[in-house]
Every structure is written in C-alpha cells, then in structure tokens.
C-alpha cells in the first residue's frame, strides 16, 4: 500500500515553462487536495476534488489547473511558471476523518 505518491520530488523550471505535478493514491479515497507550503505561511489550499470529475478552487488557485479523470489521480498543472510559484507542493487524500499526505514536490522557478 503506497498511500499518496507524488512525482517528481524536485524540479527546476524556467519562467514561462509549464509542467504537471503528479499525484496518485491507491486507497480509493474520494477527496483529494493540493497544497503549497511557503515559509511562515503554513499550507495554502490550491485546488481540491471531492470525486472523479469534480474539482474546485481553494484559497490560491491562480496560475494552476487540475483535473480528476480517475479516483486515483489528481495532477496539478502549471501553465506559465512564475517565480512566485516557487514552493513545496503537497498532495493529500482523505476518507472519513483521516488525511494522508504525499512526500511533496519542491519546485523552483528561475
């Protein structure tokens, strides 16, 4: 049972490039979330999904897009990377009261 798997673990992007952060869970959880973590700011919710085919914006959605074509996968897309998107990104899933977090993706935009 792998839990929540995020890839890649590290990435450096140039301004204007695009990329997709992958998130997969094998626990059949309906709810999935993307957070970004910045020093002194805690974790901010970017997007979330309550099930396949359903997504919604969180606190800081600008510059990101998501999709949820399957229960297992919840990729986060950055279309035009900006330095302000330098952060650590965490994916999480939930069933009932328990949350499981991935190990994170550290993204640097230069």
């Amino acid at each position, binding site marked *: 049972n792998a839990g929540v798997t995020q890839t890649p673990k590290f990435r450096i992007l140039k301004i204007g490039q695009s990329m997709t952060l992958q998130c997969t869970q094998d626990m059949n959880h309906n709810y999935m979330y993307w957070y970004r973590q910045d020093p002194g*700011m805690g974790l901010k919710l970017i997007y979330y999904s309550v099930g396949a085919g359903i997504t919604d914006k969180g606190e800081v959605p600008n510059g990101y897009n998501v999709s949820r074509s399957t229960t297992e996968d919840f990729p986060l897309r950055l279309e035009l990377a900006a330095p302000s998107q330098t952060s650590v990104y*965490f994916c999480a899933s939930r069933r009932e009261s328990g949350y499981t977090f991935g190990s994170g993706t550290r993204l640097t935009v230069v």
Partner: protein
Amino acid sequence: AQSVSQHNHHVILSEAASLELGCNYSYGGTVNLFWYVQYPGQHLQLLLKYFSGDPLVKGIKGFEAEFIKSKFSFNLRKPSVQWSDTAEYFCAVRSGSGNTGKLIFGQGTTLQVKP
C-alpha cells in the same frame, strides 16, 4: 472566512522543558481540529485530532491538546520535550459542516530543542 492563527512562530527550548504552542481559529460552527508535525525534509504527520467528546486529546509521542470552545483555542502541549521533537508544527481546522473536508492551516511553529 475561516482562519487559523498560531502565535508562536519560532520556539527554542532545552531538553526536558515543557512545551505549549498556541492555536486559535475563527469559526463559530462545529469544527474538527488537528495538529500535524513535519520533521525536516519529511511530509506532514498527524499528531492528534479532536472531533467531539473529551476536550483533552492525547496524541502520539506524548503530545496532548486541549480544546477550549469559549476561547476558540486548541493549544498543543508536551510536559518534557526531547531533541527529536525538533520540527515544524501546524494547527489545522476543518469545518464540521459540508463534506469538502478542506483543511485550513495555521502559519506553523518551528520548534528547536537544544540537547
């Protein structure tokens, strides 16, 4: 909108000292409350959570937290910290209404324990 405030941004303690980290939230309805810990280079791990019942919650590694509804607080405590408790601690709140399960996090408190 809901918000979570952690008063201590950086705490430095010696081993065996007692710890209390403050957490206040701004939501008047039913809430679920969480404390997470993040060790250096690792992902978040659940320390403890409160849903209902006894407002004094015991978690892993000797941590506990007390929910005081009248003060909108959920402070984390540990009687005697160890060097291995050096980490970042996050308080989080989830609204009890609705089923989106969004967690709102505080800013985090960095705890440094000196051996």
